[in-house]
């Protein structure tokens, strides 16, 4: 087996040093009845690189990659162009095959980029501090609600109807153990009256902007209303490129920001791995979950970085930890940091404007088609349209024409008949005029 360096001679010599007759003697603590013979495993035997590559390629070929068709899916994951140098750099052995930087003297590379990442996230979100990332946007949102419950010592959370339904379900699963999770009703394309639901038992209000339908939400009045009742505002962002064009949540009164960072540096990967961004106010620092990297000096006075404030974490605090999380999204974090470094201020703001301009252009084209109504008056790069019939069926018909038209709302809210005809359409810098023409003509054909 090509990955195993020991030869039969090596193994014999090593057993001799140990004083064991055979390798099974080393498993002597295992009950004999539990030792399974190889034949107990109905699985294939070793294969060469060529055969494995062939098998995996065959599976990959059965999928339609986003880049292989006019493509308009968003709803929490976005197809963006990632510069080639990003993927090259994250595959450097020293990044790819290192562990959590517990020995800072020989892990400054990882620690310094985490420090840069924390700074970038704090700047983008307009918050004081950010951690070294969580698993993804949805779990970051759940952690944000748990953190708000800790800070306020209250259990209830109000979840906006515009919050991605997968996010809402993730929050309900975890934070729902500590109090009621109230989902507010929403009409896609209109801001809901969430303020009326906030009371003295509310730990936090969770509002996504742009919301799952694409609508840009004004967070300030919601933050003010929450604060007046002693509750916190958790702001959720699923499209990180929007930070380049929109007022950050920190400037709108958010107390905690949970965001999905996939859009910057990371591929679609069928849903993971992604990178959860998590930022908050300085005063809540000690209640924050996840790894933190901090600046310090070594004994010679040289600047360096270490993991810090780790007494919040499970390996020290055990059952009193702020979270059970042990990892961050290391490499995805690095990809985010490198891509954002390449973009810089000018690149990110330009990229964001391109996204918005293209989405606006497509929205105009679609609203000109008979029977199609654009429901979202404001949006970043994603909007919702009403079709004359069930959107899922239209999407299926368009797949046959080689166009992937978007995410039917029924995929996310299967029980709500009122949203059955709605389609979420996302547009990024990767979409071309040809893509727009293909979509509009395919839609016209399907709806005729």
């Amino acid at each position: 087996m090509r990955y195993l360096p020991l030869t039969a001679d090596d193994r014999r010599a090593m057993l001799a040093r140990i004083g064991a007759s055979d390798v099974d003697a080393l498993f002597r603590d295992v009950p004999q009845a539990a030792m399974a013979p190889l034949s107990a495993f109905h699985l294939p035997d070793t294969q060469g690189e060529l055969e494995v590559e062939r098998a995996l390629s065959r599976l990959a070929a059965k999928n339609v990659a986003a880049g292989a068709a006019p493509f308009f899916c968003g709803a929490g994951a976005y197809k963006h162009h990632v510069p080639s140098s990003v993927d090259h750099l994250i595959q450097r052995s020293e990044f790819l095959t290192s562990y959590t930087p517990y020995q800072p003297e020989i892990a400054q590379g990882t620690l310094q980029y985490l420090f840069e990442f924390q700074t970038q996230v704090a700047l983008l979100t307009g918050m004081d501090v950010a951690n070294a990332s969580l698993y993804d946007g949805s779990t970051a949102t759940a952690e944000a609600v748990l953190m708000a419950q800790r800070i306020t010592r209250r259990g209830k959370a109000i979840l906006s109807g515009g919050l991605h339904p997968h996010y809402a379900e993730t929050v309900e699963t975890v934070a729902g153990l500590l109090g009621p999770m109230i989902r507010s009703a929403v009409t896609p394309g209109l801001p809901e009256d969430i303020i009326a639901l906030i009371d003295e038992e509310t730990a936090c209000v969770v509002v996504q902007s742009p919301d799952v339908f694409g609508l840009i939400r004004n967070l300030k009045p919601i933050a003010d209303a929450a604060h007046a009742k002693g509750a916190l505002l958790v702001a959720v962002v699923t499209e990180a490129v929007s930070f380049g064009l929109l007022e950050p949540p920190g400037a709108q009164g958010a107390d905690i920001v949970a965001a999905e960072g996939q859009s910057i540096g990371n591929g679609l990967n069928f849903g993971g791995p992604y990178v959860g961004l998590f930022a908050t106010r300085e005063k809540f620092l000690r209640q924050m979950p996840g790894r933190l990297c901090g600046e310090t000096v070594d004994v010679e006075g040289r600047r360096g970085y270490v993991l810090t404030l780790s007494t919040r974490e499970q390996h020290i605090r055990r059952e009193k930890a702020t979270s059970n999380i042990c990892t961050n999204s290391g490499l995805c974090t690095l990809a985010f940091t490198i891509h954002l470094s390449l973009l810089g201020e000018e690149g990110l703001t330009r990229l964001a404007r391109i996204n918005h301009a293209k989405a606006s252009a497509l929205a105009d084209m679609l609203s000109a088609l008979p029977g199609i109504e654009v429901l979202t008056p404001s949006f970043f790069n994603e909007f919702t349209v009403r079709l004359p019939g069930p959107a899922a069926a239209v999407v299926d018909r368009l797949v046959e024409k080689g166009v992937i038209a978007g995410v039917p709302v029924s995929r996310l809210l299967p029980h709500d008949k009122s949203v059955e005809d709605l389609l979420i359409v996302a547009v990024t810098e990767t979409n071309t005029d040809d893509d727009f023409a293909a979509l509009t003509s395919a839609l016209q054909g399907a709806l005729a």
Partner: protein
Amino acid sequence: MSEVRYTDQHEWISLEGDEATVGITKYAAENLGDVVFVELPASGKTVSAGGEAAVVESVKAASDIYAPAGGTVTAANTALEKEPSKVNEDPEGAGWFFKMKLADKAEFAKLMDSAAYAKFVESL
């Protein structure tokens, strides 16, 4: 003149009139290493003997500080929040954690005196 008693969890408590002051012992401070953070109880909080009252953290450890006796917290040493190093520099003086009014002075009397505590530490 105040009287000082000790617990087997390495807290000290000194009583002067009605008011008691609580901190961690020199032995505890040395074992804990450099203190980087303290979490102090709010004034008015009621604590029971052996109950969690405060937290002290070094880089690698977080330890609960237990109330040596039951009562009500009357003050906390907020200077430690800015300068946690005081706990290392003067654990049994300026590094005190909180003051409290005892509910039952008999609980105080049951604790180890300095000779008994010194013997206890030696046995560890």
